[in-house]
């Protein structure tokens, strides 16, 4: 072997070794960022949208106790009647308030799920809603959680199912106008089906207002190559007018009469 050839070979080995080390480095950093590569835990990171699918049960009515059922039905009927007359009632959306839990999981706009070490983060595009599910941590006592729109969520993987529980949702943050107490617990079982449909089976437990737990399921399908858009409520012109009706602010035209 000539010395020139030896140098070429050495250089070649160096290049190949560097390349392989580089690959190993990439794989190493990829697994460090993706704890979901643990056996059995599905990769659910990415953008999703609500999907109808035969595997997803139809919506269900809350099994409210009679007095709360009456309250909910009266609210829903008042809203329906006002809409039928062309004078819809203002609601929390009119004020640009985010939906909170569990309504945000209804994903009117797309959602993004992020799996990171010790936490699953779910972002809903509308109102830029964010919730965090803290993994493998004990749940707090309701009294220790400041009531909020999303509450305090903890979760863990049971095989390939993410099991989560949320407490501390404000009493005025409601879904389908169903009243609930401060002690409401939202339990979720999130799993990815072989059909590619992600399902979130939600069970609301609230013995104060419900006859029995209320279970409903949302289904989602992936939106490939979609990044969530920003959503800020800015100069909202909708407001609650007299009698709580939804109104729109009419601005004076910039050039009246021209």
């Amino acid at each position, binding site marked *: 072997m000539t010395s020139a050839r030896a140098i070429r070979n050495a250089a070649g080995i160096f290049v190949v070794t560097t390349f392989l080390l580089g690959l190993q480095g990439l794989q190493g950093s990829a697994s460090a960022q993706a704890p979901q590569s643990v056996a059995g835990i599905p990769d659910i990171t990415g953008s999703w*949208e609500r999907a109808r699918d035969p595997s997803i049960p139809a919506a269900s009515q809350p099994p409210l106790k009679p007095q709360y059922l009456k309250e909910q039905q009266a609210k829903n009927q008042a809203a329906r009647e006002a809409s039928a007359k062309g004078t819809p009632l203002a609601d929390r959306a009119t004020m640009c308030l985010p939906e909170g839990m569990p309504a945000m999981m209804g994903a009117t706009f*797309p959602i993004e799920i992020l799996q990171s070490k010790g936490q699953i983060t779910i972002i809903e595009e509308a109102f830029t809603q964010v919730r965090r599910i803290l993994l493998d941590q004990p749940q707090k006592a309701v009294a220790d959680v400041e009531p909020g729109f999303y509450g305090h969520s903890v979760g863990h993987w049971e095989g390939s199912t993410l099991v989560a529980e949320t407490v501390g949702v404000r009493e005025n943050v409601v879904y389908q106008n169903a009243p609930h107490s401060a002690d409401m617990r939202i339990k979720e079982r999130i799993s990815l089906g072989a059909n590619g449909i992600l399902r979130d089976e939600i069970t609301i437990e609230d013995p104060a207002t419900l006859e029995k737990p209320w279970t409903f399921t949302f289904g989602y399908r992936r939106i490939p190559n979609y990044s969530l858009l920003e959503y800020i409520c800015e*100069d909202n012109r909708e407001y609650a007018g007299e009698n709580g009706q939804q109104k*729109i602010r009419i601005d004076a035209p910039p050039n009246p009469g021209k």
Partner: protein
Amino acid sequence: MILEKFAMPRSLCLAVILLMAASVAEAHHSFAMYDHTRTLTLKGTVTKFQWTNPHAYLELDVRDAKGVVKHYTLEGTSINMMQRIGWRSNMIKFGDSVKAVMAPATSGEPVGLLLEVTLPNGETKQLGVPAGDSFKRTPEQEQKP
């Protein structure tokens, strides 16, 4: 690559997916304050195109046959919804002449729900109003202001 010839362009795929999504999603805001039984077609001059959430607004000056100008406020949908069906903030500018199809407010105020706009370049764009088909379109020649 014979398959490529038959494959749907990615943008079209996304559009189809998002249209399917639109059928599942409910609206955040009620559009019940607008007349579902008739539409008005306005030809006017844009005084403002408000590109905001929760909804966009188009402000339009419309001159009648006698030269009298009436101002209309037209409510659009979420700019996120609009972007997903191809809208951009710079598509309408102050002073543009546009044609707008709207469902008038039942209150009788000069307000409407914007359903469709024909841009100065002649392109007609929908607003992606949820359940937009529930607003019955009135042929232009049969419209009463």
